[in-house]
């Protein structure tokens, strides 16, 4: 049972690493959004895996909440990038540099 849990946790940590790599290296807004989604899903995997070995369903509940909220968040993020695309014809955040100092 415990070894099974370790498998899940390892996958989750690997996903977290992929997400952080994506955020650090990529400059395309949509890719960065995907990277954040991967981190959230890593956390969800953790929650569901831990919840599997506990006598109550708190983890699964939080995972459901988190999935719904992530969907709302992505909707907002995509609408922001659509507005930006209309202005710049581009989704590369390296080009958004009017604010600095």
């Amino acid at each position, binding site marked *: 049972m415990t070894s099974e849990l370790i498998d899940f*946790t390892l996958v*989750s940590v690997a996903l*977290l690493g992929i*997400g952080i790599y994506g*955020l650090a290296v990529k400059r395309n*807004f949509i890719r*960065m*959004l995907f990277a*954040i989604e991967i*981190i*959230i899903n*890593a*956390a*969800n995997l*953790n*929650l569901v*895996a*831990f*919840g599997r070995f*506990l006598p109550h369903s*708190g*983890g699964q*509940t*939080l995972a459901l*909440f*988190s999935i719904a*909220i992530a969907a*709302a*968040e992505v909707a*907002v*993020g995509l609408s*922001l*990038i659509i*507005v*930006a695309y209309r*202005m*710049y014809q581009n989704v590369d*955040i390296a080009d*958004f*540099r*009017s*604010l*600095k*100092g």
Partner: protein
Amino acid sequence: MLEITSTPLVIMAILGTVGILLPIISIIRKEKGSNSFYAVIAFAALIVSVGYVGYQFINDNVAASALFSEDVIVNDAFGGFFAIAMLIVALFTTVGSFNYMRKHNSPAVYYSLILLATIGMVLVAYSTDLVMLFVAWELMSIPTYVLVGFMKKNPSSNEAALKYFLFGALSSAIIVYGISIAYGLTGSTNIGEVIQGYVTLDPSMIPLALLSVGMFIAGFGFKMGLVPFHQWLPDTYEGAPTPITALLAAATKKAGFAATIRVIVLGMVVLNLDWTLALGILAVMTMTIGNVAAIMQKNLTRMLAYSSIAHAGYILIGLAVAPHTPLGLQGSLYHIMNHAVMKGAAFIAIAGIVTTLAVTNLDKLQGLGRRMPITALGLVIALFALAGIPPLSGFWSKIMLFGSALDAGSVVWWAPWLAIAGVLNSALSLAYYGWITKKMYFEGETEKRVKEPKSIIAVMIFSIVFLIGFGVYPEPLIQFVEFATPTISSSLMP
């Protein structure tokens, strides 16, 4: 179980109903303008909420600060304290938007989003369960992403929103990951049970517990603008509509502190580790970098954005020494309330300046004292309170914060250095506050007085009365803070 008349539920009901109804009303009425109609409705809802919180306090219906509870939210004085601070800022924002948003479309959506974000912030302060905390956190964040990018035709507003969104979404992802580790270690999402679980944790698991606490600090730190996580903050504050900047600087930041106190400070005490030193170093870095960067700015909004980073550092002093002296948390809460009013007023003053004169560049503010006397006076009083000039309210909270650091000096050797760094930083900040004042009052000769928006004047008068009133006679506010501050030693072992 919570009663149906308890403060968080009533606030949620009032603001939620009005927030959902506003866009529906706008669809039914089929008109685009009439900003003032929706502003008045939102204003009334917020006033009723503030009134309800105050009424509950006056009638002694509020439990002393609990921090732990078996429910997901608890109706305690700590939450009520933050609720008042955030509702005041939401009122500032609503009133300040009155003129600012006049030229923009879809005002109903705008005010509705402000109300929904306010519910989120208030619930963050009340929540005692990590699930509730996370949901409230997102309810606070998602509307503010939209609000920051609300001016669709304006490239800098959009850019600000994109940056804010990326960092905000990352912060919430990190928070969920931290929650998942805490849940895995302790088998519960209730904050009290998590902390109790950490006490009895197997020593080999302690690094994981530290990792989860670190992830909470990082996640909340993004919203609070602590220094390694602050890069988004000046850009977002500058690009966002200025009333929304007030909401971000004065309210969502405070929600971050509320969550930090609920989750981290107590966890810190229980884990019995040198998190305090780490927080102390973060505090010194935050205030120094914030103030040094502020001096170099040419734009008033951006300068105050950096100054708001610096103030997150001052507040963090209190959290860092919280395990060693009861004054620490009191000072933090006191400064949180003051900072909400000071920063809110300062940014609303800038919103007024932007509405009437359309400038934020410091060089163009010459003679503002003659052109917009009341706005300029409100701005100067807010700035002096931020600097901590004696007869103003900001002075007492800074004294309490630095005093708490000195007080903790008998336990930990490094605490007095926090006070020294804080005093030096206050002196440094006086330089650029003084510079703004000099520009406004002692430069420029020929400017004539222009008409100031009445809504901005109302905010200015409220803040001047608050800052001078509680500066001259701070007793009631200090008593309120003492009532709202959770006592760490007694709640340590639930």
